[in-house]
């Protein structure tokens, strides 16, 4: 026995094991090697944090820029983590801009409104930019008079590339270090009225004043997501997990696929049964005509049916059957799809079965007839069962084709498996996950069907040996 395994086979096995080992090693290694590549001094860390915070305000956001300038972070302790990260124990000093704005919000708005009205009187167009510019000095003064504030915070740096560290800008980190600057916008948004010349003026509909002031404290879009670390394998894995979560788990999106699969199976099953019945009928009619010359007219009809169905794409048939024939008389999509695929499958089944019937030895018919069975009895008892056995693999293939072809049902809006995938795709803007998932589900179903058919085939064949 051992001699039978040739050297060549052994080499293949060895190479196979080696490849698996290398791949597994790479993956495990990537996840295991998650320490930072170099250590940082407190000063270096401080510089990264300060630079990042200073870059956050928009260049035109004078208020925010001033806050950032008045902010400093001191690193007291450094800990190295297991995610290519460095945890910094920090002490920050900043100004309490949130309180300053909150306490003076009415004054700011009143002042902004009066400048707005004056500007209008002088004939210049007033918009958010103009308001922001005219308020700059006032707001800077406010910032300068704001209370100092200090405290402790833990910040985290991630090594995204070798030697390159990035501060994780969580909402908490940004808001705390910059004196509650994130709440400024919300505070201003609550201001709907101002006092002007002793009267209360409603400015609910005047957005430019609020926007102008908010813009002064605006930060450039920052990503609250954790920076991605590790080599491409780790990144790919975490991205994959994220994608998977977003496409299937979040908001129970997997249900689209499950419900779609149900619809697909229902369409395929019903259409398959219809196709079988129709196909066998047509095949028997055509064979009878071929062998006995009966049913001449029906045979012609059958031929037209076969030509039409086999000569046009199933997608076009579906569109015609639904939009041209069935929609006008109020037949629902699902039933239309079943009818269309049933008709379509019937044509192919008919030709398969006809081939099967013709392949049954003539002697079988003669034996049946010689015993006194009439033509129909002979067909039913002797010819068709044998033909069925002969064409079973081909019929199974046809059924599998039908399952796959039913995916065009989405075109008339049937919520089948393909449609489920497309729905997820339109919600998450991902392509990879939903489409690959749909493909895999089809594949698994096809493999299961193939296996079932081979079992059935073996069982049928056993009866002949």
């Amino acid at each position, binding site marked *: 026995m051992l001699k039978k395994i040739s050297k060549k086979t052994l080499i293949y096995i060895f190479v196979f094991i080696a490849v698996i080992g290398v791949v597994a090693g790479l993956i495990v290694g990537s996840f295991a090697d998650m320490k930072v590549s170099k250590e940082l001094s407190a000063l270096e860390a401080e510089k990264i944090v300060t630079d990042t915070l200073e870059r956050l305000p928009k260049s035109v956001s004078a208020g925010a820029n001033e806050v950032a300038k008045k902010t400093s972070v001191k690193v007291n302790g450094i800990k190295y983590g297991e995610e290519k990260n460095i945890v910094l124990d920090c002490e920050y000093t900043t100004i309490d801009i949130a309180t300053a704005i909150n306490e003076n919000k009415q004054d700011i708005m009143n002042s902004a409104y009066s400048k707005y009205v004056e500007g209008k009187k002088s004939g210049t167009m007033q918009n958010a930019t103009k308001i922001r510019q005219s308020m700059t000095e006032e707001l800077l003064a406010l910032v300068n008079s704001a209370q100092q504030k200090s405290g402790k915070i833990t910040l985290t740096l991630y090594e995204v590339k070798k030697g390159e560290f990035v501060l994780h800008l969580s909402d908490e980190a940004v808001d705390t270090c910059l004196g509650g600057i994130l709440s400024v916008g919300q505070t201003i948004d609550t201001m709907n009225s101002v006092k002007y010349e002793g009267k209360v003026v409603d400015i609910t509909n005047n957005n430019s004043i609020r926007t102008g002031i908010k813009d002064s404290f605006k930060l450039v879009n920052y990503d609250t997501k954790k920076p991605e670390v590790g080599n491409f394998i780790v990144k790919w894995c975490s991205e994959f997990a994220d994608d998977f979560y977003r496409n299937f788990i979040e908001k129970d999106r997997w249900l689209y696929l499950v419900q779609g699969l149900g619809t697909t199976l229902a369409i395929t099953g019903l259409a398959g049964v219809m196709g079988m019945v129709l196909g066998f009928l047509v095949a028997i009619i055509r064979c009878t005509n071929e062998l006995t010359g009966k049913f001449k007219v029906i045979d012609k009809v059958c031929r037209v049916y076969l030509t039409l169905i086999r000569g046009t794409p199933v997608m076009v048939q579906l569109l015609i059957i639904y939009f041209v024939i069935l929609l006008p008389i109020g037949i629902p999509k699902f039933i239309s799809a079943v009818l269309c695929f049933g008709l379509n499958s019937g044509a192919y089944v008919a030709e398969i079965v006809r081939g099967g019937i013709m392949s049954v030895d003539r002697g079988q018919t*003669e034996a049946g007839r010689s*015993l006194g069975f009439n033509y129909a009895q002979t067909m039913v008892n002797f010819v068709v069962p044998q033909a069925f056995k002969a064409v079973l693999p081909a019929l199974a293939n046809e059924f599998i084709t039908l399952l796959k072809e039913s995916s065009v049902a989405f075109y008339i809006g049937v919520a089948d498996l393909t449609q489920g995938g497309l729905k997820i795709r339109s919600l998450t803007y991902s392509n990879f996950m939903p489409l690959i998932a749909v493909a895999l589900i089809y594949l698994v179903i096809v493999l299961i069907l193939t296996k079932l058919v081979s079992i059935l085939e073996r069982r049928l064949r056993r009866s002949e040996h």
Partner: protein
Amino acid sequence: MSTNEVLIKTENLQKSFGKLDVLTGIDMEIKKGEVVVVIGPSGSGKSTFLRCLNRLEEPTGGNILFEGEDITAPKCNINLHRQKMGMVFQQFNLFPHLTVLRNLTIAPMKLLGVSKEDAEKRGMELLERVGLADKALAYPNQLSGGQKQRVAIVRALAMNPEVMLFDEPTSALDPEMVGEVLDVMKSLAKEGMTMVVVTHEMGFAREVADRVVFMADGVIAEEGAPADIFENPQNPRTQQFLQCVL
């Protein structure tokens, strides 16, 4: 064994395939209990003649009377007559998807309305008679050629036919299996079954036949008792044929 009652009678029976005339007018009477063996060179139309008797081939001319009724008449339901005319084929033509026993019982049950128990009882008797009772639940493809042909014979017998038609029943068999099939046919003949046998087994013809019919070129060239035909053939074609095969 034969009585005087005529079971099958053909009158000027003709059959042509397109322009090819295979039978050019056959008149024959087959009496009840008679064993008629049809011999002749290949292409002489003997198989076609046999197959015309139960209209597996549609005759193109002439009449066939079976039990006095014209079975070539358009109104005649041939299926009812075929139930009384058993046929055995050269290629056995057993139903491969049915067990041996089911091969025997399906026709009586579905055509004669015999109950399952009765049909199976009779089937087992028939199988025992040809020594194949142990194969009742086997499928045809598990049997040897000789066994298949014996099953085919009892399948026809299960319908209790009036006449048995044999179309070269031993031609497709290995030589060592011919004997077992011929033995069954001999015992059938002894019991008084009416038989029409197309065969090349001259020994069988000589031993069993009541009458030997020599066919050539679509007509009956010569017929008579086996002793006369084999020992003292009159027609030169018969002489020539027998010289070749004996």
